[in-house]
């Protein structure tokens, strides 16, 4: 009974939890309840991934209305993997949240904070699991509106302007997306993605379809912060409360990349994309993005902002995979999506642990802290190595596949850019390591009595750090699932 409704429960559970959390008394109750919910969702997401790992597709009819009229949840290997990331990151972020939120957010706002967090969680899961393109828009707005509110809760007043800027750009992106959806509906009369995929090929030459495609691409490029539409991201990640940064950095942009993947390959089909300049455009923008944003990251004085710029660069790696459009390219995109969530999650958590102790994320305040906070420092080192893509870490696996995909199509420029990007990553990660370990400790009042971060912050951080190492050796889950997903996304290709 429960088994058959699993697909819906994953989304419905946090949605139902949100109002309950909102009315719970402030204190530890809202936190405990949301943590339990996130663990339950994580367990269900694991189950669901096992169910679809053989390559089958689960179709769930919402309210018993048969698709294409009713809303359908359609779960295959690709979105089960993304749902697993979202649920997994929430399940480790929430235990971390207890201490961090107590310090950063006023007590009387705790239950509302966790309610907004649950709504954002619902939205992201809904985007991944739905098979209905308008339903996707609704979930997109649920997650976006709650994340604007979450970002605005940051301690500094810049958090407000960052949230406002994100609201404006996010709404423009989402509105572009519904314009596109509306035009698609006008031409095909359907909103179901499978149905759309069947009806679109005969309309490929039609101007309206091409316009719809352009609107959807630009809309989602804004949401996933594809260079040069990334302007909202650095401020939002820098000024948001630590927990929100960890969660959004590890999930929100990944979910948007997944939507791009779904729209490009499942709805329109890559044959359509190849006729448009989209794939070349993606590759050019990604190359520019990787290089410029990595340079920007090097010159930042704030650790969170440094990682935020690095995120924009890393999104470039994911989108290159889509631009290449080959089986290897999509494998690289899906694997990097997963691995980047792990590494950015770990790094933002480790930086968050430092912020928890010294109340600042400026790199110059970090001097000498490495010796006082050895575990946090070690987490930054391992996370940083993964970000660079050193063999033995998760980051290596995804870059390996991306380079293979580029070599397969003889795109030597991309190979060079990926290697160059990794070198630039060495520089900005080194900047953190240097400040933390090699600079003498300044005996200012801020840092003189600093100790190691509490266990409640260290354990979730290290869970993600160890996951980085684990998925650097065991690629069965990431690459294996990605290869199953490709059979569905690119029918007719043999791996």
């Amino acid at each position, binding site marked *: 009974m429960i088994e058959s409704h699993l697909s819906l429960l994953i989304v419905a559970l946090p949605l139902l939890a949100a109002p309950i959390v909102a009315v719970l008394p402030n204190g530890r109750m809202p936190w405990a309840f949301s943590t339990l919910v996130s663990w339950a969702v994580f367990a269900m997401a694991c189950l669901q991934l096992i169910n679809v790992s053989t390559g089958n597709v689960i179709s769930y009819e919402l309210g018993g209305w048969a698709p294409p009229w009713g809303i359908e949840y359609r779960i295959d290997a690709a979105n089960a993997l993304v749902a697993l990331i979202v649920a997994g990151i929430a399940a480790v972020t929430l235990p971390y949240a207890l201490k961090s939120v107590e310090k950063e957010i006023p007590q009387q706002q705790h239950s509302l904070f966790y309610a907004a967090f649950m709504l954002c969680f619902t939205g992201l899961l809904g985007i991944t699991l739905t098979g209905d393109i*308008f339903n996707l828009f609704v979930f997109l*707005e649920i997650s976006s*509106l709650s994340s604007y509110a979450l970002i605005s809760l940051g301690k500094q007043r810049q958090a*407000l*302007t960052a949230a*406002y800027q994100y609201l*404006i750009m996010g709404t423009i992106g989402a*509105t572009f997306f519904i314009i596109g959806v*509306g035009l698609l*509906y006008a031409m095909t009369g359907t909103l179901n993605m499978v149905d759309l995929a069947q009806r679109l090929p005969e309309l490929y030459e039609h101007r309206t379809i091409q316009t719809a495609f352009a609107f959807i691409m630009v809309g989602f490029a804004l949401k996933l912060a594809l260079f040069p539409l990334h302007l909202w991201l650095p401020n939002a990640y820098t000024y948001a409360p630590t927990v929100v940064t960890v969660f959004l950095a590890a999930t929100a942009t990944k979910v948007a990349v997944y939507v791009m993947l779904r729209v490009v390959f499942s709805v329109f089909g890559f044959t359509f994309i190849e006729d448009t300049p989209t794939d070349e455009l993606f590759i050019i923008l990604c190359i520019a993005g990787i290089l410029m944003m990595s340079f920007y990251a090097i010159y930042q004085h704030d650790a969170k902002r440094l990682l935020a710029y690095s995120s924009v660069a890393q999104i470039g790696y994911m989108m290159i995979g889509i631009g290449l459009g080959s089986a290897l390219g999509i494998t690289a995109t899906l694997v990097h999506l997963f691995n980047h969530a792990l590494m950015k999650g770990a790094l933002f958590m480790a930086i968050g642990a430092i912020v928890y102790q010294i109340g600042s994320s400026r790199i110059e305040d970090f001097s000498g802290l490495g010796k006082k906070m050895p575990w946090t420092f070690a987490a930054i080192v391992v996370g940083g190595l993964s970000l660079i893509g050193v063999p033995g870490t998760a980051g290596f696996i995804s870059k390996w596949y991306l380079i293979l995909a580029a070599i397969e199509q003889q795109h030597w420029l991309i190979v060079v850019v990926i290697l160059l990007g990794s070198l630039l990553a060495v520089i900005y990660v080194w900047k953190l390591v240097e400040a933390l370990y090699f600079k003498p400790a300044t005996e200012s009042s801020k840092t003189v009595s600093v100790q190691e971060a509490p266990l409640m912050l260290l354990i979730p951080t290290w869970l993600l750090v160890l996951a980085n190492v684990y998925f650097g050796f065991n690629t069965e889950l990431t690459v294996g699932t990605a290869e199953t997903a490709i059979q569905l996304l690119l029918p007719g290709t043999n791996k």
Partner: protein
Amino acid sequence: MDLIIGHYNYWLVIIIMMAGFYTVISRGNLVKKIAGLNIFQVSVFMLYISIGNVKDGAVPIIEKGVTLYSNPLPHVLILTAIVVGVATTALGLALVVRIKEAYGTIEEDEIHNQDHSL
């Protein structure tokens, strides 16, 4: 001529869309930006409602003797989008109120100057 008069609602959509979009980009006042965003969204509502119209179609309420109805689905969809638009506006204005409390101004350039003069 038919292209202009026959599709006048679509032309209106484009005009309103661009007016709203331009306001969002060009204005420095945060409230005006939200107003522009609203106008931009309203154009999408009009687009959807226009899509739903079927030539010579009746109001989609079942009645004897009527065989051709307009398509009600886009109207229902856009109800959802209107709700989303209202929520976005409310949240945006709430943020503007908080920004006014924190900075004492709602002009983008003045906020920018305050943040960078520190």
